[in-house]
């Protein structure tokens, strides 16, 4: 009775589960390295994007307040003088999940560029944070021509506006509609960015992520300076 009621079903179900997991482990063997490769590629592209022209040093990982923090040190040589800069990964919860971005800053805390690596925001609203401005319309594609390229605004307009802002003071979130290059001056003056229309949560998430990332970068740099007193500059 026990054999029939308990052991047999258990054995059958376990066998099925084992077979499935065995098959999956083979799929994982093929896809696993590919996944890791893609993540690294994406990170490298983002690094080069936010720190253009810099030689990027090794990836450093620390824990700040019990949370993982990843940053890079970078250097650019101009004649004898060398400029230092840092890049770090910022993460913050948006509307539909985490928004991860790569942020490049110089020694004074000015943003050199940001690049949103991954997001799961709503298409048409929050997902516009990675959208490229001056995009061609569907009709243009159908007709086979690509106008609107004359303005040269093929940059992701939301990310572009972070360039040149300082992280030493709070970044202000303003509602001025979509960013265009003629708004740059006035926004830089106010140290602010223009929020995405209808997606304030996403905008706030990116900004807060960048700000708290900067805080952590400062802490991480202090700590590493403490650890190597000889190397402190």
């Amino acid at each position, binding site marked *: 009775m026990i054999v029939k009621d308990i052991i047999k079903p258990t054995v059958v179900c376990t066998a099925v*589960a084992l077979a*499935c*997991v065995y098959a*999956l482990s083979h799929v*994982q063997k093929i896809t*696993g390295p590919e996944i890791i490769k893609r993540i690294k590629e994406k990170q490298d592209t983002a690094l080069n994007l936010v720190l253009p022209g810099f030689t990027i040093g090794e990836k450093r990982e620390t824990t700040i307040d019990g*949370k*993982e*923090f990843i940053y890079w040190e970078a250097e650019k040589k101009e004649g004898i003088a060398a400029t230092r800069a840092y890049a770090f990964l*910022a*993460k*913050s*919860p948006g*509307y539909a*999940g*985490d928004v991860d971005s790569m942020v490049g800053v110089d020694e004074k805390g000015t943003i050199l560029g940001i690049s949103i690596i991954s997001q799961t925001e709503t298409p048409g609203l929050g997902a516009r944070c990675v959208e490229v401005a001056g995009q061609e319309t569907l009709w243009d594609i159908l007709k086979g021509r690509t106008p609107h390229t004359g303005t040269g605004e093929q940059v992701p307009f939301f990310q572009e506006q972070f360039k040149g802002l300082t992280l030493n003071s709070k970044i202000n979130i303003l509602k001025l509609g979509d960013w265009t290059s003629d708004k740059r001056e006035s926004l830089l003056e106010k140290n602010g960015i223009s929020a995405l229309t209808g997606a*304030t*949560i996403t905008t706030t*998430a990116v900004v*807060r*992520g960048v700000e*708290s*990332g900067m805080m952590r970068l400062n802490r991480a740099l202090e700590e590493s300076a403490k650890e190597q007193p000889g190397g402190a500059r």
Partner: protein
Amino acid sequence: MEIKVFVTILLSTIFINNYVLSRMLGLCPFLGVSRKLDSAIGMGLAVIFVMSLTSFITYPIYKHVLVPNGIPYLVTIVFILVIAALVQLVEMVIKKISPALYHALGIFLPLITTNCAVLGVAVLNITSGFAEPGASMGLLKSVVQGFGGGIGFTLALIIMAGIRERLEIADIPENLRGVPITFITAGLLALAFFGFSGMKI
């Protein structure tokens, strides 16, 4: 500090990111069991219980079994089996301990296995953090998220059941009866809940 985080998670899962009306999870039971207020309450309680319990069990399994062994890709298969087994177990336990409760909740329990809100909360617990940027979820926060998700589901279900009981006597165009009018009502509810979405906590 910690209390504030829990309140944030609760408010967020109940109102701002309501599982049914904003994330659109668990719609099958939302449509199926919202005809009568009594059964809606019963189903809601069962879902709150199972979602909290699922969060309590799946999070440690992921954190302490799957990740250390390097097999996080098995998460889907493990979670769904755990949930199915859990629902069965809860059913048996309730049947033994409290027949009265079993009569109230019993028929809803098997339905819960395929309720995507339950698997949804288990997956959300391990993929998306809450409150502070970069914060990992932690067991207690997961359970709070499961509990809040269940309450949000119940809230939507009860409101819906209340409306549908009144809709019964309304004169609705024939082709709109049943599911279509329920979806229109749900849309109006979602519009109302949409108002919470800009809320700062």
